[in-house]
């Protein structure tokens, strides 16, 4: 049964190879992709069922003894993130069947998409620091491929910027891994947790700072987020939704796993610094979003802003903070991906991502308003939507610890988030279309797009109306962190 723990990495890798084999036949490729993602989803749910019994799945490759073996460890935190990964993959693949900004149908798009899923899945379940680096690289190469296969100049430009900054990030990570191995002689998480207390505190702080900085580049935190708004908006919509939802969260997960679990208790000064970084990330992200008129750029800056909230939970360095982080991450991945997908539908109906050139959707598609408002208001944190519960958990803990400044920043940023979301609503829906002759196009193929977005909105509504289930799960997951 423990072999199931390899599924989050092996299933998408096998699917990537298979969709490459059938790449010359688009319909067959689509079918194979659907089967692949369903298998991944089934495996993820089976893993979830397994960890719900309180069991942690461990598989050591090649049957080597610990701590020599490369291990995959699936605990509650990892299992929940693997399920959400599979869910995002499913939404993206369903959306690809529509005609809303899905790119040029390049035959390598699906293989690379599965590559990103494999990288994320592997990073979530691995129990080995060097292996984590490898999965980050898998994600990086596949995300770069997805950026570059469009072939437009802006995509090449974006992929160059993405490459330069992210490659420096992974090299920093590799350097940090070398430093960790140099001072402890271990790479396995369990062995590292045991070896860490013996290291001299000053040296250990330097090593951990290096490691955290490398993960923060990947998470898109202040001040190392410049790669994110420079590149994301050139991706086709379903890929963008997947990448935007998942990739930065893998960085956050790595911070949580290292500071909150493996190297817990980490030096207090690191958590303190992380808190200020989180506050700055929230603020600068939302200010960037307020400046822009392109929906994709607005949403890309909101990723950064929301990353700040999630990092704040880690900075609080308590079980309640980690539970809030996990809850927030799960809620945010769904909401953010959904917003990008809805923006693509708006693009298909009105013809532009630029808010100044569009409008009139409320008259043309009144029900779509509801579809936008569910994720948009959830992102802001309006009760009773899922974002409200996430922020409530987070700020309750922040106030409980007397972190007034961080709390105030978080609340102010929420208001500014509301401003951005209202900008999208006012401009795209409420005002008249600038072109008086505009009519929504009739021969669209939006069925799959509606299915994907309504499905994700349904998950958001479920979390909103019944947060207890996820909350209990997140608290149980946080309680096991740091208990090595």
């Amino acid at each position, binding site marked *: 049964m423990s072999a199931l723990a390899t599924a989050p990495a092996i299933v998408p890798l096998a699917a990537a190879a298979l969709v490459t084999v059938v790449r010359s036949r688009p319909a067959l490729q689509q079918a194979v992709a659907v089967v692949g993602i369903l298998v991944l989803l089934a495996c993820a749910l089976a893993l979830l069922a397994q960890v719900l019994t309180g069991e942690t799945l461990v598989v050591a490759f090649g049957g080597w003894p610990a701590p020599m073996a490369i291990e995959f460890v699936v605990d509650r935190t990892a299992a929940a993130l693997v399920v959400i990964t599979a869910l995002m993959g499913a939404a993206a693949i369903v959306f690809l069947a529509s005609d809303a900004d899905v790119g040029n149908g390049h035959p390598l798009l699906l293989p690379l998409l599965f590559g990103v899923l494999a990288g994320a899945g592997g990073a979530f379940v691995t129990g080995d620091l060097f292996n984590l680096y490898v999965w980050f690289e898998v994600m990086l190469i596949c995300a770069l491929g997805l950026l570059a296969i469009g072939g437009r100049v802006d995509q090449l430009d974006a992929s*160059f910027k993405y490459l330069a900054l992210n*490659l420096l990030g992974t090299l920093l990570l590799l350097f940090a891994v*070398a430093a960790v191995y140099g001072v402890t002689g271990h790479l396995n998480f369990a062995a590292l947790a045991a070896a860490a207390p013996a290291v001299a505190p000053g040296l250990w702080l330097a090593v951990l700072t290096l490691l955290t900085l490398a993960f923060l580049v990947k998470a898109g935190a202040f001040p190392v987020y410049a790669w994110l708004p*420079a*590149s994301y908006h050139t991706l086709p919509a379903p890929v963008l939704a997947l990448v935007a939802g998942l990739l930065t969260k893998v960085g956050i997960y790595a911070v949580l796993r290292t500071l909150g679990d493996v190297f817990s208790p980490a030096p207090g000064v690191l958590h303190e610094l992380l808190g200020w970084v989180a506050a700055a990330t929230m603020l600068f992200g939302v200010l960037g979003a307020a400046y822009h*008129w392109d929906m994709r750029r607005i949403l890309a800056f909101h990723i950064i802003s929301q990353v700040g909230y999630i990092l704040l939970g880690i900075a609080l360095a308590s079980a309640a903070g980690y539970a809030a982080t996990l809850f927030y991450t799960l809620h945010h991945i769904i909401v953010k991906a959904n917003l990008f997908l809805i923006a693509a539908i708006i693009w298909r109906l009105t013809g532009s991502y*630029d808010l100044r050139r569009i409008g009139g959707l409320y008259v043309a598609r009144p029900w779509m308003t509801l579809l936008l408002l569910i994720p948009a208001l959830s992102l802001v944190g309006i009760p009773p939507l899922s974002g409200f519960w996430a922020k409530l958990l987070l700020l309750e803990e922040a106030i409980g610890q007397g972190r007034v400044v961080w709390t105030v920043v978080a609340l102010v940023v929420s208001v500014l988030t509301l401003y951005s979301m209202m900008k999208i609503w006012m401009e795209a829906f409420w005002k008249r279309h600038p072109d008086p002759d505009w009519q929504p196009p009739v021969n669209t193929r939006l069925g799959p797009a509606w299915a994907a977005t309504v499905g994700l909105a349904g998950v958001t509504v479920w979390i909103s109306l019944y947060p207890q289930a996820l909350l209990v799960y997140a608290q149980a997951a946080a309680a096991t962190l740091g208990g090595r």
Partner: protein
Amino acid sequence: MIWAVAAAVWITLASGVYLCLSRDVFRVALGLAVVGAGVNLALLASGRLGAGLPAVVPKGEQLLVGASNPLPQALVLTAIVIGFALVCFSLALVLGLIRDAGTDDALELRAAEPVPGDEVKPPQTDPAHAPDWPPEGRP
């Protein structure tokens, strides 16, 4: 020995970072490769230096004496392979970029950016705030 390796790591890293800071995108790609080489050297040094024997127990022996630590060597091999793939990719990317964008100056690569003057950000009409982009008087 370790000090020599440390100096080599820092010299390599510094040269790589220097190349990365160039405005020439091709140099940036090369700089990233050089930084990668420096990091790989650091990774190799994270085991211990000195012993050069392969970590294979000779036939008929039971103990392994004086062998080097094989794990960092395995790690550095993996890192080299990954770095190699990324260098390949970045060179192909940079070639395509230079060809399609018609420039190798990072400051002129603005296709994915909102600049004053493009359709997302219309230029300000007040000449006092007129955009200075691309900056004039560059070589």
